[in-house]
């Protein structure tokens, strides 16, 4: 795999925590690569498995689902659903021939702009190491 591989990562961010953290990171002029493509959802619980799969199909090399910390959900319990769904989905991914490491769930609160940068950079590194998701090939 080439050094010039630039992974395309779709990050689902909840409106209240992670999206705000990303915003703050931006306001704070924190350096981050452009590989992360943000999709704002109201709650991480809005992210259905189908949508993640459609994202991979649409050509993403990795998917990040980010929401509030457990207990901090703006909708009380939306992220509890996410916390159940995403691990299940990871099992399903390998069945579908996609390395489960390409999907990650992370909790980033609105106050954690540095953590947002850290999590995304770390994920970019992981995906960069995994290489591009080759369509139709079982990994």
């Amino acid at each position, binding site marked *: 795999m080439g050094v010039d591989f630039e992974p395309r990562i779709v990050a689902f961010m909840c409106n*209240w925590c992670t999206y705000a953290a990303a915003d703050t990171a931006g*306001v704070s002029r924190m350096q981050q690569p452009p590989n992360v493509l943000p999709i704002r*959802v109201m709650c991480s*619980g*809005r992210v259905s498995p189908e949508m993640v799969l459609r994202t991979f199909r649409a050509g993403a090399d990795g998917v990040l689902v980010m929401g509030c910390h457990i207990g901090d959900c703006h909708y009380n319990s939306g992220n509890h*659903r996410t916390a159940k769904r995403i691990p299940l989905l990871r099992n399903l991914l390998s069945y579908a021939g996609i390395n489960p490491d390409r999907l990650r769930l992370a909790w980033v609160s609105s106050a954690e702009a540095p953590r947002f940068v850290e999590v995304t950079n770390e994920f970019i590194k992981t995906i960069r190491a995994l290489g591009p998701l080759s369509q139709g090939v079982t990994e």
Partner: protein
Amino acid sequence: MATLIIDGQEVHAEEGQTVLEVARANGFEIPTLCYHPQLEPYGACRLCIVEVIRRGRSRLETSCTYPARDGLVIKTKSPPVIEARAVILGLLLSRCPNVPVIQELALEYGITEPPFPVEDPEEKCILCGLCVRTCHELVKADVLNFSQRGIERRVGPPFLEKTRQCIGCGACTIVCPTGAIEIVLEQAGIYKEKPLGPTAAIWVPSLQAVPRVPVIDTDACIRFRQNDRTEGEIADACGVCQMVCEAGAINFDQQDEVVEVDVGTVIVATGFQMWDPAQLSQYSYGKSPNIITGMEFEHLSNAGGITSGEILLADGRKPEQVAIIHCVGSRDHNAHEYCSRICCMYSLKQAHLVRDKTDAAVYEFYMDMRAFGKGYEEFYERVQEEGVVMIRGRGAEVEVLPDGKLRVKGEDANLGRLVYVDVDMVVLSTAIEAPHDANQVAALFGLSRSVDGFFAEAHPKMRPVETNTGGVFLAGAAQAPKDVPDTVAHAGAAASMALALMDQGEVTISPAVAVVDEELCSGCKTCISLCPYTAISFIEEDNVARVNEALCKGCGTCVAACPAGAIEALHFTDEQIVAQIEGVLAWV
């Protein structure tokens, strides 16, 4: 009503009053050591002796126990009285030669040296029994009593051993006139958050609060503690505050209660707390009574405080040098990284106060002088003109010298070298931080907190008083450190936001809600249990789920879960999101 003549002056007494009470009420001075107005008279020290002339017979009697009967003639300063008091004070001074209160009283009667010296000059107890009576009559713990008799008499718990009966209320140490009782705190802490110095269980939390109302700390209050400890068996301990409160304002039966109020908006203005400088040992806080925090300096300097506003050292002297250290706990990677914003200005004010009230030299160790507000810079200049020595550089360490002096070490960044000054008093300008229970408040209102622990506003620039929870606003230092003008402005803004919301009388909800396509809905009810707002109900006759738009907050959890794909989140429909995904991934 009885009429008496005291030192030639006619005075009146109520039924049941003693001669001492009447005399003191009329301004006659009678010395006492074993008397306390809240305790039964005891008549042990005999200092309050007066000459009582009744039916032509003159006798020396203790005024604290003698009933103020009609027709008595009292002489409080006749030669036999003075002579007897002098002899008694001589005896007491011989017993306790090193007790200041005895020394002073004895001096009033012309006695400077103990006339009958004893072997142990360190004795402090004069056996006045105040502690014993307090423990018995008020605290009702009956821990202290006398043992032995005569000159061997002593005060202590049974067998002079530590006893669980002692609740450690410290009342005995407070009534003791000679400081003979010390309290050893095995479990420190209950006095920790109180104003400077030992405090009672009833205190005024903020000296300049309006109304200035004291509170009872039920964890420290003898009455409450005895009641709790004995499960109500001793329900009437102490109560001194009730006895002395002329307004009858003390009500022990008042209970904490939960008041439920229906409101449309909430302003969170929970403020801040002072950071505890004992966490950084280099400042030696707690190792010398003359190392105080800025807040403690405020208590000291307050005209209503314990020194009536005089700035004094613990031993009562005036300080000759005072150091003020900025940024204690602020701008520090080992404590709080943020700037507490208010310290520079209050430190300057305190430097000004020291200069104003004493002749002490003042040294300010500062990192940067943040005189950012209106008129602040001018004040900074004025303080400099007052002769305050400004040392640019963090005050790094405070050392308590053997003679009690305090050595402040730091770097003078301007000179580029280490400096130290020896001072009498150090004021630590400590950081302010979010209250220790901010996380509970946050959970209650669904608030986020910034890295610094303060509550996060909805947007750092555009929405400084709103939160992510509709109808909940922030005011003051709950949001971030603020000085008074900033707090007032911020609070005003929060109030206007709340008022604006209330003025509308109705709320506009987000259009981003979920809707069920009833054609597709299979009636599986998966969504119903998922909804945190019970916004989805099942319609039996149509065998479909339906969303109440007023309740739905639009989180979309149900959308993601619907097996039939029958629910859509408006403005966040699958199609829209997928379009976005495809859009962003279209970038090559």
